[in-house]
């Protein structure tokens, strides 16, 4: 059975697949990590750093991996959407030819849904995209 010294382990730590740093299998490095507190601490520091970085990117990208506040987020979106809806409603009423405008549906605050709801134009579809900024939701109108 090959024994790994701390110096060799340090070299291996720089390149090793993250799976090996968890020391749950039986490679020479993993055996060493199970018996050497200093090297195990170094491996943990690397893994914790990777996790922090992965969480930061997930959080910034708004992907589901990171926990995000939900209701406050959509309340923040709903208010500008409701304001935009009111504005579009006024514009629509002024121009009777306008029959394809899409607008958010104004809802009472207690009924704000988890996802924004918009009226799609009769001739097309809308794509609703959350952004990393909780105050901004992008809505594309995909009209035929």
């Amino acid at each position, binding site marked *: 059975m090959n024994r790994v010294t*701390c*110096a060799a*382990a*340090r070299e291996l*730590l*720089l*390149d090793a697949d*993250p799976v090996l740093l968890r020391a749950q299998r039986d490679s020479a490095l993993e055996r060493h990590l199970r018996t050497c507190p*200093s*090297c195990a*601490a*170094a491996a943990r*520091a*690397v893994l914790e*750093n*990777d996790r*922090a*970085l*992965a969480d*930061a*990117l*997930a*959080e*910034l*990208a*708004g*992907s589901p991996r990171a926990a995000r506040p939900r209701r406050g987020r959509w309340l923040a979106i709903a208010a500008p959407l409701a304001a935009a809806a009111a504005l579009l409603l006024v514009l629509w009423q002024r121009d009777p030819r306008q029959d394809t405008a899409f607008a958010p549906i104004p809802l009472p605050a207690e009924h704000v849904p988890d996802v924004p709801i918009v009226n799609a134009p009769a001739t*097309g*579809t*809308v*794509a*609703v*995209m*959350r*952004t*990393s*900024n909780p105050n901004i939701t*992008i809505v*594309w109108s*995909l009209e*035929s």
Partner: protein
Amino acid sequence: MSDEPAIDELVRASQRGDELALARLLAAMRPRVYRWALVHTGQPDDAEDITQQALLKLHHGIGSFGFAARFTTWLYAITRRAAADWRRTRHRRLTLLGARPIEEKYAMQHHDSRSRLLQLVREQLGSLPARQRELFDLVDLQGLSPAEAADLLGLNHSTARVHVLRARRAIRARILAVHPHIVEEMR
């Protein structure tokens, strides 16, 4: 990636003119494209611009996608081109204005949690070449195998592996350097 079949289904439906499918596809791909863009730029606003450019190109070009490669590979290539355009434009703008890179502005104002996250991403990935950054993200942070990441980027498998190893080495050397007690005990 496990959601590939569902994505392919949305792509096919979009190509048939199903706008609802296209809307779903755009919404489903946005976080992924944004993350790729963020890894390239380290700037949320610029990443958003690149994301919108890439999604516009997806919208305009989806009819020409022929499934010769995976859809995500195609989209990744679009995002990289949008990021390259962004780099060129940014360089031109900075040269014209004689301005300092915007990173300095961000570095001075990491006072809220979002800025701290950005600061972390920038510190860790900022000094790596673009290829190493994207491969480190795909393999070590998102859990793809080096071969999957290589396919996604259209790279040779061994080239991808070398980039991952170099990125790991650079990032981990820095971590071990800021934990001198660990290094000291290991000597």
